[in-house]
């Protein structure tokens, strides 16, 4: 009477036979009985979590605020400041691009900058993050592999692309005028300021075992805006030349946002009076003013700063943590009230 229908069982035929041949396996997985943890948002977990979170954020915020407060930062916009307005005007005309221009900026440091002092140049409103700007670089070339981009003359440009072409080419000389004694040139370390991986892996000069750098770059043209070829970027140090020049590497690490600062040098603290940082006093910066910013309404600035483990002087995170802490506390109080008034007795949970 009972005839067992021949139903294709999703393509698999089991070897078993007998009356229970097609009975599914009794495994926890197949029967959806896997042991599991079912968390639920209950007052016992949520409320303590909120209070704890608030406390943690508060502590973090205070700690970070103190840390950030302990750093010092001096920011100088030199676009048109001091004697630089002449240069600024000069650079407005692109036909003067090749003419050198330098200017001086005088500023005091009222309170000594203690510890390591970092010297940055900053640009405002310079879009290093434009897609076509970034796409125009060639990492293959920078690692020394190929020279295939051609300019009008048929010569490959090294380094090619808009990023390299637009390299920031102002240079700075910082001088300390102590209250006593002569002016001292502030020594800046200009090497070892790029990422280790960039310096040692990402950027490589074209194979130069037996060749000089000049030979290696033979047959290449320098970028359009450059005054000198890539192998003469640092005339003093051959290991800081060509593609592995620190300034080039730092410039090539494009900033994420249009306002950014890039490391120019670190205070060399071996000699007096800089062993403890930058002492208070008057300083001048001699600027070789080359980089034009007036085209894009940009600003240029110099930043001197000390650092902590947390980095530079950015107040956002500490403040954000403090605000978050307050918000969490507020939420926690609201939730506690709601729970106390409605959820505690579980009345609403009953049918």
């Amino acid at each position, binding site marked *: 009477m009972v005839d067992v229908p021949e139903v294709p069982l999703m393509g698999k035929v089991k070897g078993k036979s007998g*009356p229970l041949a097609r009975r599914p396996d009794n495994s926890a997985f197949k029967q959806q009985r896997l042991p*599991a943890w079912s968390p639920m948002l209950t007052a016992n977990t949520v409320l303590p979590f909120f209070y704890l979170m608030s406390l943690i954020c508060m502590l973090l915020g205070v700690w970070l605020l103190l840390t950030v407060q302990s750093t010092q930062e001096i920011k100088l916009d030199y676009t048109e400041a001091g004697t630089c307005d002449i240069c600024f005007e000069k650079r407005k005309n692109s036909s003067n691009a090749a003419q050198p221009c330098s200017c001086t900026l005088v500023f005091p440091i009222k309170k000594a900058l203690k510890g390591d002092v970092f010297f940055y140049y900053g640009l405002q409103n310079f879009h290093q993050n434009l897609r076509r700007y970034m796409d125009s670089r060639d990492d293959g070339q920078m690692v020394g592999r190929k020279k295939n981009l051609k300019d009008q003359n048929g010569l490959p440009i090294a380094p090619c692309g808009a990023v390299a072409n637009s390299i920031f080419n102002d240079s700075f000389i910082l001088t300390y005028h102590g209250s006593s004694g002569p002016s001292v040139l502030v020594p800046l370390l200009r090497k070892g300021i790029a*990422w280790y991986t960039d310096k040692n892996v990402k950027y490589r000069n074209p194979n130069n075992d037996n060749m000089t750098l000049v030979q290696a770059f033979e047959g290449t043209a320098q970028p359009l805006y450059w005054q000198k070829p890539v192998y003469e970027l640092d005339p003093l140090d051959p290991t800081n030349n060509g593609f592995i020049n620190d300034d080039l590497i730092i410039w090539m690490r494009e900033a*994420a946002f249009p306002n950014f600062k890039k*490391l120019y040098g670190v205070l060399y603290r071996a000699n007096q009076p800089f062993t403890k940082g930058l002492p208070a006093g008057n300083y001048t910066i001699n600027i070789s003013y080359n980089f034009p910013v007036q085209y894009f309404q940009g600003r240029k600035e110099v930043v001197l700063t000390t*650092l902590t483990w947390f980095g*530079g002087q950015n107040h956002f995170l500490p403040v954000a943590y403090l605000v*978050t802490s307050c918000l969490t506390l507020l939420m926690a109080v609201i939730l506690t009230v709601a729970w106390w008034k409605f959820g505690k007795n579980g009345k609403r949970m009953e049918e």
Partner: protein
Amino acid sequence: MSFFGMDCLRKKERELERKLRANDREYNLTFKYATNAIKTSKYNPFTFLPLNLFEQFQRIANAYFLFLLVLQVIPQISSLSWFTTVVPLVLVLTVTAAKDATDDINRHRSDNQVNNRKVQVLIDRKLQSKKWMDVQVGDIIRLENNQFVTADLLLLSSSEPLNLVYIETAELDGETNLKVRQALTVTGDLGEDSEKLADFNGPETKLMQNCGKTTFKRTSIDRLMNVLVLCIFGFLAFMCTILAIGNFFWEVNEGSQFMVFLPRQDGNNAAFSAFLTFWSYVIILNTVVPISLYVSVEIIRLGNSFYIDWDRKMYFARYNTPAEARTTTLNEELGQIKYVFSDKTGTLTQNIMTFNKCSINGKSYGDVYDYTGQRLEITEHTETVDFSFNPLADPRFMFHDHSLVEAVKLEDPEVHNFFRLLALCHTVMAEEKKEGELFYQAQSPDEGALVTAARNFGFVFRSRTPDSVSIVEMGEQRSYELLAILDFNNVRKRMSVIVRSPEGKLCLYCKGADTIIYERLHQSCSKLMDVTTEHLNEFAGEGLRTLALAYKNLDEEYFNQWKQRHHEASTELDNQESKLEELYEEIEKDLLLLGATAIEDKLQDGVPQTIEQLSKANIKIWVLTGDKQETAENIGYSCNLLREEMNDVFIVSGNSPEDVREELRNARTSMKPVEDSMFVPERTLGKGVKLIADELVNGEYGLVINGHSLAYALEGSMELEFLRTACMCKSVICCRVTPLQKAQVVELVKKYKQAVTLAIGDGANDVSMIKAAHIGVGISGQEGMQAVLSSDYSFAQFRFLQRLLLVHGRWSYLRMCKFLRYFFYKNFTFTFVHFWYGFFCGFSAQTVYDEWFITLYNLMYTALPVLGMSLFDQDVNDVWSFQYPQLYIPGQLNLYFSRKAFFKCALHSCYSSMVLFFIPYLAMHNTVRDDGKDVADYQSFALLTQTCLLFAVTIQLALEMSYWTAVNTFFVLGSLAMYFAVTFTMYSNGMFLMLPSAFPFIGTARNSLNQPNIWLTILLTSILCVLPVVTYRFLFIQLYPTINDKVMFKVRQAKATPAPPPLRTRIRRTSSRRSGYAFSHAQGYGNLVTSGRFLRRPALSGSSGFGNIGRTTTGFSPMGRSAGYSPTGRPQNAKVQDVEVTSLQMYRTIKDPAF
């Protein structure tokens, strides 16, 4: 089946005529007709790749990604590398192709199975067994009963009288009634069985030409998703437009000045740049419509289908049948069912009638009591009565009450008379193939059960002739002279026989509806009547079908006179019917009550519980049955569909459209008295399709509607009236419906209600309904496979439906909705960050993330955790799901995923993306590493943002997930670990040196992830992303807890104690005012039995007599159904017009052009 479409196109011209010679293969071969090999498969190994790719790219999503790929190849536009699109696209295409390939392999298999079926072909004057695929045009074929036919045939001759054959064409047109075909008279006298001439073969058969029409069922989520995807496309265009406009202004104001450093391509001006930017952003923001969405949805559905296949609790050991998800694309719809349309016989009932109880002379038999007098529940282990004293007893018959056997053995005259009546008063045919092996062929299973009961208690009906009935009474052979059968009909609701015993005593035995019999009893029975009524009520309350039995000794003289008048009346031409009626009335009075029988129309296991559970889950159950109204109503009560507590059960049985309309109106006004009858709550949804909203009624109501009333109710002018009334009722029973009407009812609900329907049935007559409903469920088991073959899900028992819906369906829906919500959230968040970045990068279509991250985000980093969630998640386990069927209701209301939920998702994403962009922006802005080196560069920022994003979406997933298995934990933590592993690998020296331009992010991870401020930023974004979500959810749980929250709360409370066992109490009702009469008998068999027509055939020829009348081949029990279906029944009982109204629709004959 596009393949066949192509096949048709290839035909040069329409074939106007076919020339063939029967049984002449050589001649026929010259025409190159198609062979009879059936081919439903789409591909072969060579065509697979091109055809499959062609098909896949017809899908809008794939085509879209191809378009994106083309955009990416254009250098001016390409904002992303080609691999970001190619990798997912190839993956998606591969997965789909693999699935298509396995499907097609299965089709190849089933084709082979069909093609290799055997058939008898006449070749060289001999019948040879051939495969169907080798049958050629012009062959002569011999068919036997119940054979599949896979060619168009011309009927030459049949073994049936009048050269008739009955064919079922369920697979052709979905109509599952048997159609009658008659052979040409010329060929009629040729031979035995059915002989046929092959006419059209293989792909040219009607079947193959029609099978392309199968509509693919789609779920409501699918449809919603399509709408949403369109919305998303619109939104995408909107975002891109904003960014393009932004780009235009930026180029005009700043870009033109920045040209010193970034010269434009020749001839590009700001407007053109904006145009290009638009397309670039289309590429970047394409992740709002991720290609992996469709693949993931498929995988989740497949996984949840496997759970159904694997469920041991839906495996039926007796048939060795597991549940099977035959369609893998409808799972979440199972969690949204609002209407269940069920067949009755074979689905709700086992179609087995058992003689369960009886009341004889005021004593009730059938219950078992223990020694304290407590009534015992009858289970499989209850001791059964031993009938070994009776060699002719049916071994399958079971009875538990020993006192009845004792009463028989004590020769209690009333008890003997009771069983003698059962043995004499019926129209059953007996067949005795071997001495002592009796087979009854009963026209209704009720009768079969009664006669079998009498047989076991020692009153064995053995054989009958037109004018006598032989029974064996307690071992003694006796032959009663059958003087008259006062036949049954729907008005009389009773039948009587008048017999003369061997002693010469005349006696009238009558059985019928209690109400009818009671009117005709002698006054002396009044005391007995009261007791019996009590018993009848008790029986009816248990859902048993009752009949009252009575007898009357007749006076010889009176009878002769009556007989004379009877003869006159039956030869009269006009008014014959009413005259006979009067005569019957006259003789059937002053009866003496013998007792009552109670037959159980055995329900499938757990049917009442299932129905109760489903109705608690707010699922409305409509039973569509071919049975009579009384039978259907009775089953309605016994399976808890109709309840005594219901405020009212309306019965619509009008015979004219006006009556039906009136009855429907009345029903509605009594349900909802304060209603302005003119106002129909409806709303229009596109294209003038009206939707009827649910109407609230106080109280519970039931509706029973008759077949002919239903035919009127389904007419265009009244369908709304019917629908509104029916939908206000808790449960609806439609009786006497045809297969076509079943489908019509389903279509009606589908048309006007925005609700998901499910049809469940077991027989071929349910196929149309199963195909019409959103989801069709087939009961796999006894009645053949048609229902299963056209169903989406199949299992062996009706009770598994509650598990399918309340557990699997609910979980599937929950999982799918959680998946979609989360998936849209994670992708929107991902994409919106690009949007915000646009404002800081001159709208230049710069991406925020590393390209590899963009490629792998959906494929690797977030794919497995969300898949894990949507395969394992369960809010509460199955036991609790059964405990609280109300958990099912949110699904019906589309609460978990709707446009509103989607909109909320988008808002949430918007918030998260702002946190994820602006917090890192402000935190990193102008910041340096602790050694003064760069960390605010583009690459570090990209890494920071993507890490923040990944943490945020992972934590969000953790919040969504309510069921953490080890696998989930592994997936979540594993994906995070994988992210870091992959990131460090991608940013490693080795990868960079291998392909410098593909991996420019070298060293970024090492240089920035060792910075505390990076991690503090990640922590802050995570906190800010999570806080509002937790707050919102916690507040909602406290203030407006949903049913899920409540149940989960209860689960937590009950965790210490094990979950309560599911309700398993047998539903018993005690009070009842209704009659339990439900005799599924049709008129006309009395004449048949006495006319002796059936005796013309040899008695032992298997399927003779009633067998051919029944819908299935053998007569009695469990296969036979009520007579409503018998195709040949009509000529024999043509008088009964009221029953046959529906039958007319069933048995319409279609003129076949082949004849």
